[in-house]
């Protein structure tokens, strides 16, 4: 039965997969069968429906979260209490300060740029010829992995020295050469390399922003638009005085959602630079400290920091939702 843990051939792997699914179905079948017995107390039924999910969440999310918070106050062996030392390191060390500044840059720029591009595009293609196709083009990056997106963009940024007989293979450097500039090592030169990484996330998230905002634009009642039109409002003024105020709640949701996603994103930095050349962000640094550099204490403190940074965004989001509900 060794293959259950160390399946090596495709056949074995699929077999293990089917066994796992069957096992799961069997367990759930028994749980539901018990909770559906006649004359069983109702709390057993509730338990049958809720307990599997609740136990998993306790085991895999809540309990580990407490352990991580505890470990963030301990040293690298995870046994000796050292107070706030890990946090002090994060906030005083020059290397970590770069990480924090980069993270701030990401969390501010990605949501604003994505929402901006998404909104512009949603307005421009709204009811236009070929709308559905035009939207799919922008939306498609949402479907692919961030790792794949990183490869796509790394190729765009690829650098070749500007010498006779050597051609550029990266599109962006080729454009620089075409217009008579020197090709650049886009991913190697801080601090501008951060912006080229951020561009990838904007490229991905704009599709999300566009979709949500487009739905918001389409739900603006027709009579408001018609009325504005009859008053001769059109073009930019229509956007400024009719569209924008109507979709404002959706814009807030989009920006906060993307900000939270950006905070946690790690794939892009990992794949494109590995966090070198002063491009690391908190989520990437967490991985390196925890699993590469053997500093679980610092890693835990960074994870807690991520959690703490998410909270104000959530609170703002909730407040805005309440405000817009009151207005209705």
């Amino acid at each position, binding site marked *: 039965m060794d293959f259950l843990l160390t399946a090596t051939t*495709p056949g074995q*792997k*699929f077999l*293990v*997969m089917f066994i796992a*699914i069957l096992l799961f179905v069997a367990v759930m079948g028994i749980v539901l069968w018990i909770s*559906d017995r006649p004359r069983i107390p109702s709390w057993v*039924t509730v338990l049958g*429906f*809720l307990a599997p*999910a*609740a136990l*998993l*969440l306790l085991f895999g*999310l809540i309990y*580990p*979260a407490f352990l991580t*918070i505890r470990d963030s106050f301990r040293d690298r062996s995870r046994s000796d209490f050292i107070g706030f030392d890990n946090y002090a390191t994060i906030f005083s060390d020059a290397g970590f300060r770069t990480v924090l500044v980069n993270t701030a840059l990401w969390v501010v720029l990605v949501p604003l740029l994505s929402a901006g591009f998404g909104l*512009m595009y949603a307005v421009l293609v709204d*009811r236009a*010829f070929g709308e559905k196709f035009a939207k799919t*083009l922008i*939306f*498609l*990056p949402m*479907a*692919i*992995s961030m*790792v*794949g997106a*990183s*490869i*796509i963009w*790394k*190729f765009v940024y690829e650098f070749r020295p500007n010498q006779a007989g050597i*051609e550029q*293979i990266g*599109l962006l450097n080729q454009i620089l050469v075409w217009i008579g500039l020197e090709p650049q090592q886009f991913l190697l030169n801080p601090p501008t390399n951060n912006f080229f990484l951020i561009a990838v996330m904007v490229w991905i998230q*704009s599709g*999300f922003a566009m*979709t949500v905002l487009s739905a918001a634009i*389409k*739900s603006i*009642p*027709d009579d408001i638009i*018609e*009325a504005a039109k*009859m*008053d001769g409002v059109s073009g930019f003024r229509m956007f400024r005085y009719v569209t924008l105020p109507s979709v404002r709640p959706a814009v807030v949701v989009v920006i906060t959602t993307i900000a939270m996603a950006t905070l*946690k994103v*790690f794939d892009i930095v990992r*794949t494109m630079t590995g966090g070198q050349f002063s491009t690391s962000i908190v989520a990437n640094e967490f*991985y390196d400290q*925890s*699993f590469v550099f053997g500093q679980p204490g610092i890693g835990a403190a*960074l*994870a807690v920091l*991520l*959690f703490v940074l*998410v909270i104000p965004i959530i609170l703002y989001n909730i407040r805005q939702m309440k405000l817009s509900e009151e207005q209705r």
Partner: protein
Amino acid sequence: MSNAPVTPDTPDDLVDKGRNLDEGPAGTQVKSTKQRKLTRAEQRAVDAKTRLASPWASAFAIVMAILWSIPTFGLFFSSFRPEREIKTTGWWTYFQNPGLTLDNYDEVLFGSSTNFANLFVNTVVITLPAVIIPITLALLAAYAFAWIDFKGRSWLFVGVFAMQVIPIQIALIPLLTQYVSWGLAGSFWVVWLSHSIFALPLAIFLLHNFMMDIPRSLIEAARVDGAGHVKIFFQVLLPLLVPAIASFAIFQFLWVWNDLLVALTFAGGSPNVAPLTVRIAELSGSRGADWHLLSAGAFISMIVPVVVFLGLQRFFVRGLLAGGVKG
């Protein structure tokens, strides 16, 4: 973003509302009644014309669409060019340096140093249970939260709702320690388990929202007929929830298929479990100049999610709008 039914306004109302919105010549009664005679479809056609009439707007949209597609196209096209051509010339010089081949795909899929065929199997084996298990568990929990009365229900639900904001990073180190001590680290089992756990808060929240949309009378009618919770769940709710389940299934599918962090943490060290994303990210660091492998490899990992996405886009958008967003 509710699409509330619009109550029909009289033309006078329209004009009045219009005045409040902005200064400008108020529409006349005659004009507005004329507008009213247009059907919705005709009105949309007129709108389309007025939009395209602004060349700058159209130009901007087209430029943006091109900007968004060219990078993908460039790499995709390059993945079919011979290795030597990719490494020395740009894909836009194709006509001076012609030549298309499937060699890159052949090498990356079956070459001994990459063996993406094997990784593709790993990705599929990881993804299927990691979609089925959390959806099933979340459906049951969502049902309990929506349709069974018990003490502390709303508090528990708020707790689950709040769990959505916990970054999964906070759970990774203790979970890995636990898996290692069980001797399960680096197996499919812990990858499935971890993905299932991390999916639950969002899944329960989303499916609960969809469940609350089902009319109470349907459930109560079934209850009056003497059906128990299990019977109601399978015979009344499940058939109605198929679109909702599809929405979340696509989400979870894309999330697991495209995931790097969970796979890297729990399966990164074992080539027999690691999915495509882990190996591509690794190749990007160790063999970053091998564009013939990176390009083909990247598209092998993208093809399935893109097909699923294009085929089921409708459900995906529905899930997005219902609040299903995961970082």
